[in-house]
């Protein structure tokens, strides 16, 4: 197509970009507001609420819980998601599509279903809602993230590499250790970082599996609903943005560099 008259398109692109980023910019600015009332424009700037929030015992406990949940869920997701991707990659196209379709269901179906289903399940099994149940809920969707990332990489790997390895008498395990694993390591790493970010920020499934536990997003949700400690909410929300965007940036870098390797 020609490159003529994209002015209308350019305006549309600029509008969409503004729409996407203005709210994020505003929330970042609010974190530095000195006031304890939430009004625009910001009258004075200060870091005082960072000090208040980081000294708040509730916030600290919620933060630690979220870190623990995200770490355990990510570890489980890396193990299970990588195994699933490698197995699916070896399958014939027919069964592969069927298994793939089933495996992405936790992401394709509404989050409330996963949450409510697990809640009904745990309640039927008389399992108390605690750390374990939060981790199970998060792992269910974190697996999909790792799986998607690793499978995408495996599909781009030329079969000739593993075939060459077999021709040189390497067994399945040796081929895995010397060829497949090193070639997919960065995709696994990227998947892990994305899974961590997703878990750290998750609310919907968590509301159904947390019981009396409070993860950081649950603390934020509670505070907003009660309209209490909103200056602290501003700061916490800003911190969550930073803490999720950092691993995601790193993940992007990992997959980007690896992408270049194979071209």
């Amino acid at each position, binding site marked *: 197509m020609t490159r003529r008259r994209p002015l209308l398109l350019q305006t549309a692109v600029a509008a*969409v970009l503004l*729409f996407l980023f203005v709210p994020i910019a505003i929330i970042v600015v609010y974190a530095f507001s000195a006031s304890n009332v939430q009004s625009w424009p910001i009258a004075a700037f200060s870091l005082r609420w960072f000090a208040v929030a980081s000294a708040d015992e509730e916030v600290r406990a919620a933060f630690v819980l979220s870190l623990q949940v995200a770490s355990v869920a990510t570890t489980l997701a890396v193990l299970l998601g990588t195994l699933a991707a490698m197995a699916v990659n070896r399958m014939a196209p027919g069964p592969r599509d069927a298994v793939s379709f089933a495996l992405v269901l936790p992401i394709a179906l*509404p989050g*409330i*279903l996963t949450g409510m*289903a697990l809640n009904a*399940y745990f309640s*039927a099994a008389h399992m108390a809602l605690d750390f374990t149940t939060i981790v199970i809920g998060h792992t269910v969707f974190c697996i999909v993230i790792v799986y998607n990332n690793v499978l995408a990489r495996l599909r781009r790997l030329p079969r000739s590499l593993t075939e060459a390895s077999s021709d040189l008498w390497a067994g399945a395990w040796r081929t895995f250790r010397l060829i497949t694993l090193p070639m997919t390591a960065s995709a696994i790493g990227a998947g892990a970082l994305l899974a961590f970010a997703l878990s750290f920020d998750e609310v919907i499934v968590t509301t159904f599996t947390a019981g009396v536990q409070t993860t950081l997003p649950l603390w934020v949700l509670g505070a907003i609903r009660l309209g209490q400690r909103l200056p602290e909410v501003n700061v916490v929300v800003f911190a969550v943005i930073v803490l999720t965007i950092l691993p995601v940036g790193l993940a992007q870098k990992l997959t980007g560099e690896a992408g270049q390797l194979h071209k």
Partner: protein
Amino acid sequence: MTAQLAALRTFAGRRPWLTTAAMLALPASWFVVFYLAALVSLFISAFWQVDSLTGEIVHIWTLDNFRLLFSEPTYRHVALRTVLLAASVTITDALLAWPFALFLVRHAGARTRAALMAAVTVPLWCSYLARVYAWRLILSHDGALNWALNLLHLPDQKIAYTNWAIWLVFSYLWLPFMILPVAAALERISPTLLEASADLGASEFTTLRRVLLPLAIPGLVAGSIFTFSLTLGDFITPMLVGGAGSDFIGNVVYASVGVANNVPFAAAFAVLPLLVMAAYLLIARRLGAFKAL
């Protein structure tokens, strides 16, 4: 031991499916135990009941939960509101994503394209709650939107805590999920097709309508799975930016579990999004959306 291991290795080596099955065993068991079994128990609980005196779940099969859902107009309104808003959000995002993706793929250089792709991805990872809360601040009485309107000597907005606010915030939240697959679908279209279309005398608009749009449909459908499904299953956004009469299916489910402690009724209502999504996914599969994911 080594001999047995070697024997096992040869055995597995001659039967590649065995290795595949062994690899799949762990993730598949996890999936069955913690996801499929949970979905099944959701289905089953929907046909149970809570004893009004003890609050315990009674395992007697009944259709009462579904009868209540269909007979009570409030629940019909909630279901209708959820599905209609999910559809409106999907259409809005498709309309917004189309020009963006078109520019990204057809008019941007390699570097601009990469920058725009990154720009679309970043908000997705900027904390869901943060972005909903941002809109609550923007739309509040002392918020940035009223401030901007007043600068232009316009009256205050009236959308805060209404269904309009929910529609706006959902469209905002899920827009990247629509842009990315649409851009991916457009990227796969060979330039030769567009040249052929032009050579055959088609105007730019005709090419857009008869070549680009039909070929981008798998991308649009793939994006719509996300926008539709995510809206359908959400209750945080209606809770935070909606008003008194803007409950979604999710809000009723959440309240039934958290406040009323009535898991069977919540399960029955949660089955509805499952049925809607099942129908949606089957149609999407027909339209080739899964190849565009």
